[in-house]
């Protein structure tokens, strides 16, 4: 176990150094989008509105935290691994080291998890200042962590499967961007036709925003959504491990 954790640390070390070299750029780029959503939807459109019985600002802060965990974790992990694999080829060097495939998956997702946690925490901290309805709970912390891992694993998968930089960009705009807007981040899913709801419940971000909202607003906790989110995390993890183990990369 100690050996495994050490391997994760060794794998992630270079990415965390990279983050140290570029901390301000990386942080501002992953926080900019969420802040704009907060301004445009929270203050602009949503001023004075309520959703599911709470002020709109309290409703969307957990949603924006969820989408931040998606955008920051996914894109930092995917972008970096993509260049390391296809352009620097330094990922080859890692594959030649005596490391377990699981440690490589966890290690390569660490940059995304750290960036996702920092960025979503900033958004949530702003929320705590803005509205008394929100509170930080242990369950919230657990869910946001799982959420960051889920989307970081998804980033690893996208980078491992990408044939080029262009295919990464396509994945981002066809899968990640629609999720950002639709998965219960800015509005309650109950406003939508049931067929659309069914589709959205098949996406991980929906469960992330539902659980984060319930955990931070003190609503009945939807354990089934947490289970669904974890199932996504495990599935993405296993896909990555398989790709690395069989060297289909």
């Amino acid at each position, binding site marked *: 176990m100690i050996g495994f954790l*050490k391997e994760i*640390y*060794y*794998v992630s*070390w*270079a990415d965390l*150094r*990279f983050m140290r*070299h*570029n901390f301000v750029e990386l942080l501002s780029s992953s926080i900019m989008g969420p802040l704009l959503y907060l301004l445009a939807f929270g203050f602009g459109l949503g001023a004075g509105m309520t959703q599911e019985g709470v002020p709109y600002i309290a409703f969307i802060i957990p949603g924006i935290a969820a989408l931040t965990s998606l955008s920051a974790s996914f894109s930092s992990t995917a972008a970096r691994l993509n260049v*390391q694999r296809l352009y*620097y*080829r*330094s990922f*080859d*060097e*890692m*594959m*030649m*080291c*005596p*490391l*377990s495939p699981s440690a490589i998956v966890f290690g390569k997702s660490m940059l995304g998890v750290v960036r996702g946690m920092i960025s979503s925490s900033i958004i949530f901290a702003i929320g705590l200042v803005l509205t008394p309805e929100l509170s930080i709970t242990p369950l919230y912390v657990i869910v946001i962590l799982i959420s960051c891992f889920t989307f970081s694993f998804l980033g690893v998968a996208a980078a491992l499967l990408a044939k080029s930089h262009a295919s990464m960009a396509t994945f981002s705009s066809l899968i990640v961007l629609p999720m950002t807007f639709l998965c219960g981040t800015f509005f309650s899913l109950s406003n939508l036709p049931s067929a659309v709801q069914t589709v959205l419940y098949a996406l991980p971000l929906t469960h992330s925003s539902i659980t984060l909202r319930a955990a931070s607003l003190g609503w009945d906790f939807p354990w089934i959504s947490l289970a669904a989110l974890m199932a996504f995390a495990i599935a993405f993890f296993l896909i990555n491990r398989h790709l690395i183990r*069989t*060297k*289909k990369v």
Partner: protein
Amino acid sequence: MSEIIIVEGVVKKYGDRAAVNGLDLRVNEGEIFGFLGPNGAGKTTTVRVISTLTDYSEGSVSVGGHDILKDPKEAKKLMGVIQQHISLDTDLTVRENMMHHAMMHKIPKSERMRRINELADYVGLDEYMDKMINTLSGGWKKRAATVCSLLHKPKVLFLDEPTVGLDVQARRLLWDIIRKLNDNGTTIFLTSHYIEEVEALCDRVGIINDGKLIALGTPSELCNKLGSTAVEYYGADNKTEYKYFTSREEANEFASSLGDVKTVIIRNTNLEDCFVELTGKSVSGP
């Protein structure tokens, strides 16, 4: 002498095309093995298969007695690779790249800095250690990559066209590194397009063409198969022709029978002759 690399019937396909097509190859422990072949013959693919970087559809590979599929961790500990393309993390410094390699190869903390400094000093990188990789010229990147591949003291070192793009000093340094490592017992697997490099360094040579091994032996064995003496003449149709003979006498006889040609050279057959005869293509530069 034991065999440290055993490749049996390996097939590696990209789509429908086999880049390596039923390759059998054995490399002895402690030798310098040269691997020659025209562009696209499958040299890099072979190195990638053996060094566990890519999957393959048929056959088996073992390194130091460890099957690379069943026991990849043990096999990986024995191997180091200097790849054809520089494979460093461009966003980090030279030292950070080396440190990362040392960690991933699980070199004990107390050893890491010592080995890094020792090797960096040897290749003359000391003053570049805190520079970002992307500020280095190609040759210096190659030196940094070389250090990274040597940190864990591999028993088998693969070098895929290591001297392409290096200046004379760097090339001589690399040859010295290869010889020194080999003196200390490291097995070397070298691919190259520079035949004189292979001739100068290698104990045995394998020639690959279209994914298949077409010749194997010491440089002199290969030359003798072709005929030890070569006659090179610039013929009437403005093309240089080559003919090979088992003795000087036969060669002389042939040369004097040529009559009206501009230039005739009688010399010993070299590895380049073997290469061209066997692969039917002339060797091009990088």
